[in-house]
C-alpha cells in the first residue's frame, strides 16, 4: 500500500504506473484539486496542514480497510501539505482491482472517509482574508471513542 504525505507536487503518473499489475482490469483514480472558488468567493491559494503522524496512521488504516472491505488488490493514498495553488492536486487516491465496481466503490469510500476522519485542515486564502475551511461534524464513532478497525 503506497500511503504518503508529501510537500511537493504529487507524482500522479508514477503512482499510477507503479500500482498497475497484470491481475488488474480496472483502476479508479480520484484527483482532488484546488478550486478557484468557494461559495462564490474567489480563492487565491490554500494552505494545508495536518496532525501528520496521526494522519498517516489513519490513511494507512483506510487503505487496509478499503482492501479488506471491497476486495480490491491495491490502494494508494497520497496527500500534499503546505501551500497549493489553483489546479494543483491536494489528494490522490488510486485503487486497482480485477473489476471496476469494487474499484469505484473503494475509491469513493476512501475519499469520503478521509475527508471526515483524517486530521488534515485547509486554510483558504481569499482576496479579502483567510478562513479555516469549515468541516462537517466528526462521525459519532470518532468523537465517542477510538475508531474501530474494520474488515
Amino acid at each position, binding site marked *: 500500500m503506497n500511503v504518503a504525505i508529501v510537500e511537493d507536487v504529487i507524482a500522479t503518473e508514477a503512482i499510477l504506473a507503479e500500482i498497475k499489475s497484470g491481475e488488474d482490469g480496472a483502476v479508479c483514480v480520484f484527483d482532488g484539486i484546488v478550486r478557484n472558488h468557494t461559495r462564490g468567493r474567489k480563492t487565491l491559494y490554500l494552505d494545508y496542514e495536518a*496532525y501528520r503522524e496521526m494522519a498517516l496512521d489513519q490513511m494507512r488504516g483506510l487503505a487496509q480497510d478499503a482492501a479488506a472491505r471491497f476486495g480490491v488488490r491495491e490502494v494508494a493514498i497520497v496527500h500534499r501539505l503546505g501551500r497549493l495553488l489553483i489546479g494543483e492536486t491536494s489528494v490522490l487516491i488510486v485503487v486497482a482491482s480485477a473489476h471496476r465496481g469494487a474499484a469505484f466503490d473503494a475509491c469513493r469510500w476512501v475519499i469520503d472517509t478521509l475527508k471526515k476522519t483524517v*486530521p*488534515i485542515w485547509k486554510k483558504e486564502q481569499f482576496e479579502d482574508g483567510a478562513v479555516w475551511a469549515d*468541516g462537517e461534524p*466528526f462521525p459519532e464513532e470518532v468523537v465517542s*471513542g*477510538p475508531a474501530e478497525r474494520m474488515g
Partner: protein
Amino acid sequence: MLVRVLFFGVLKDLVGAEQQVLEVEHEASVGDLLDVCRDQTSKQSEVWTRLAVAVNREYASRSKVLAEGDEVALLPPVSGGRP
C-alpha cells in the same frame, strides 16, 4: 500531572499556540482537560463543541482518563468540503 496538548487549524489561532504543556489533576479526563483549555481563552467559539480529541494519536471519548505525559490533540472538524 503534566500532559502535552496540541492545537490544530482554527484552534491554533484561537488559543494562540501550537502546543502547551498543561498541569491537570491526577486521573483527569479528556473532558476535564477541554474545560481547562476553554477557560484559558477569552474568545467564545462553537468549535469547542465540535472538536474531536486524540490521545496518543488515537481518537478518544470525553470520558477517557488521561495519564502523565499523554499527547492530547484537539482537532477541529476536518475540511471535507461538499462531496
